[in-house]
């Protein structure tokens, strides 16, 4: 995975991809026509009761599983691949992406009775029976039409095996091998959208703090571990990045010259600015869904939570108390704010309801509960609890008060952050000796490391990719 020193690569890639699509419009229209035709044909239900196949309720108990198989890539015009490197890059990337979805189980090629190959990438060329017998629910095919210059075009299709029905087909024109990860994220976003109703996992990006040479800066990476990019170079300590809802800004704490500052990184400018605020502390900035910035300041001599105005001046207090109040986190409707407070002597998690003005205590166990992240639906709060074995991530159901531990160490698991889909949770852990970012779900399905390179990586924050 290449590391880039600027944040524009994604936009450029997007532009190139768009341009190329325009350039090859005629051909693409043909493909889409073809795919649409296949889709229309395949939409005819072959068997009764097929409509509700292959849907996953990611908000359910998380025990449903779909068996998926990716057929080896095929050239659209010949029996052999023109450039096997491209084929394996797409195949591996797709496997890697689908591996991140806990409800998909990948079937080993050796387990396909009669061999893993398909005669073609279209439904009419596929012997669905052998995949059905091998308990494959979802089959993906990759078709390549390579050219001497550049990688050429790629078609990816997904079929429901039982119904022999294509559920998704997309064609892409590639200018460059480096566009493969973005192409796969786009395809997987649509596939996940089809299966679960929400594909934002593949449309989002994580900002985080990374320590190098004694300094901490803000970096970004996709949750799939691609496109690792450095965003700031401030020669100080930057903490707690938070993405604005439109993906255009990242707010963070900047410690420099014996002072705390509010740092703001701007996507358009590609650089960060520092703002001074009254008091001595600038802690835990967070954007509301309307794009208002909230954070913990101490102009009254104690860390309280305030709104800032549009020019980053202090607007009004949200939460004033003699004790510490930090770490605001808003749900998608903007009616609830979770936060951590020391008002009971030890830090605990509370939820403030803006409509009723009520403050609800939500953590009761333990003596040190911090780092709240409320789900976009406002129904769950993920937080860090100190246990005798170190910090662990817990999720509490605000309706029932039931708690569930979703991370299991070793070491310390901290900084949980609900993804925009309300399903995935990113967090940091020093289980490997150094802090790294990990992905799990609110059901606590496994934990996968997100590669971020050398140096402590902490405080993941989700943001939506702009113009994805």
């Amino acid at each position: 995975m290449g590391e880039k020193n600027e944040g524009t690569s994604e936009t450029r890639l997007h532009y190139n991809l768009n341009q190329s699509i325009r350039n090859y419009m005629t051909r693409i229209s043909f493909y889409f026509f073809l795919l649409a035709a296949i889709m229309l044909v395949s939409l005819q239900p072959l068997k009764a009761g097929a409509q509700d196949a292959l849907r996953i309720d990611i908000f359910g108990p998380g025990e449903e599983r779909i068996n998926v198989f990716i057929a080896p890539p095929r050239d659209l015009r010949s029996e052999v691949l023109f450039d096997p490197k491209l084929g394996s890059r797409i195949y591996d990337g797709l496997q890697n992406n689908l591996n991140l979805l806990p409800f998909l189980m990948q079937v080993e090629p050796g387990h396909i009775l009669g061999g893993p190959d398909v005669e073609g990438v279209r439904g009419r060329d596929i012997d669905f029976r052998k995949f059905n017998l091998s308990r494959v629910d979802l089959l993906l095919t990759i078709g390549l039409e390579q050219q001497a210059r550049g990688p050429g075009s790629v078609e990816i299709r997904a079929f429901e095996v039982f119904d022999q029905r294509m559920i998704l087909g997309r064609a892409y024109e590639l200018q460059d091998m480096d566009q493969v990860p973005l192409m796969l994220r786009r395809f997987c976003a649509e596939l996940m959208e089809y299966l679960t109703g929400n594909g934002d996992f593949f449309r989002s990006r994580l900002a985080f703090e990374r320590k190098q040479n004694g300094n901490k800066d803000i970096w970004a990476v996709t949750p799939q571990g691609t496109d690792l990019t450095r965003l700031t170079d401030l020669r100080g300590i930057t903490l707690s990045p938070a993405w604005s809802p439109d993906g255009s800004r990242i707010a963070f704490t900047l410690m420099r010259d014996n002072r705390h500052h509010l740092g703001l990184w701007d996507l358009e400018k590609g650089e960060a600015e520092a703002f001074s605020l009254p008091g001595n502390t600038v802690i835990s900035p967070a954007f509301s869904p309307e794009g208002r910035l909230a954070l913990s300041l101490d102009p009254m001599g104690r860390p309280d939570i305030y709104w800032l105005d549009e020019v980053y001046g202090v607007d009004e207090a949200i939460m004033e108390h003699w004790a510490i109040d930090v770490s605001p986190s808003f749900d998608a409707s903007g009616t609830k704010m979770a936060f951590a407070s020391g008002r009971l002597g030890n830090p605990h998690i509370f939820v403030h309801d803006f409509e009723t003005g009520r403050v609800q205590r939500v953590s009761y166990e333990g003596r040190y509960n911090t780092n709240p992240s409320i789900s976009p639906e406002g129904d769950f709060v993920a937080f860090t609890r100190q246990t005798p074995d170190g910090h662990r991530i817990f999720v509490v159901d605000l309706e029932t008060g039931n708690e569930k531990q979703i991370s299991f160490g070793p070491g310390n698991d901290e900084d949980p952050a609900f993804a925009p889909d309300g399903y995935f949770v990113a967090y940091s852990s020093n289980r490997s000796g150094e802090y790294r970012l990990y992905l799990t779900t609110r059901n606590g399905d496994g934990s996968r490391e997100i590669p971020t390179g050398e140096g402590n990586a902490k405080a993941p924050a989700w943001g939506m990719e702009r113009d994805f």
Partner: protein
Amino acid sequence: MKNRTVVLLALVLGLIMFAGTGCGKRVVDAPADPAAEELTEEERARLAEERLQEEMRRQALEERRLQEERMERERDALDAEARIQEAMDEITANRIHFAFDSYELDADARSKLQKISEHLNRFDELSLVIEGHTDERGTAEYNLALGERRARAAYEFLVLLGVSSDRLQIISYGEENPLVDESNESAWAQNRRAEFKVLD
């Protein structure tokens, strides 16, 4: 007998007074110049030489005195600098420590702050940054707030001891700058601290 002595004494006194007035008049009338005119050239040169030497001796003494004063001033200045440096070193060395998740000043912390306030009250020119630090066991954001509480506890105590608040600045580093970069009880205890840095 006694009466005769008194009369005699009065007589003597009267005589002395008469003689005195007579003599005075004579001295005033007597001219002094003829005596000076009698000095030879040689004698005049000798006197001039003596006066010159006297003057040079006086100047040399004056020089030495000035030199000594200058050295003394320099010694004083060095002493003052050394005293400020000593005060600064002691301020920096006086870290105060806290219990886990606490910002309460214990007796030891209070006595160290007392010492620091004495230095600050002696040297008006010193301004401080009070740094609040935590151990790594909490979580980053809450620790930033806790570091602020610790620095502020020290700040408020110093203000109580008469240090002007505009000479004190607060910053919390939370868990970002540990004193001992290890994960054990002793390192944690040393890392839960407030430190005092003299501003340039």
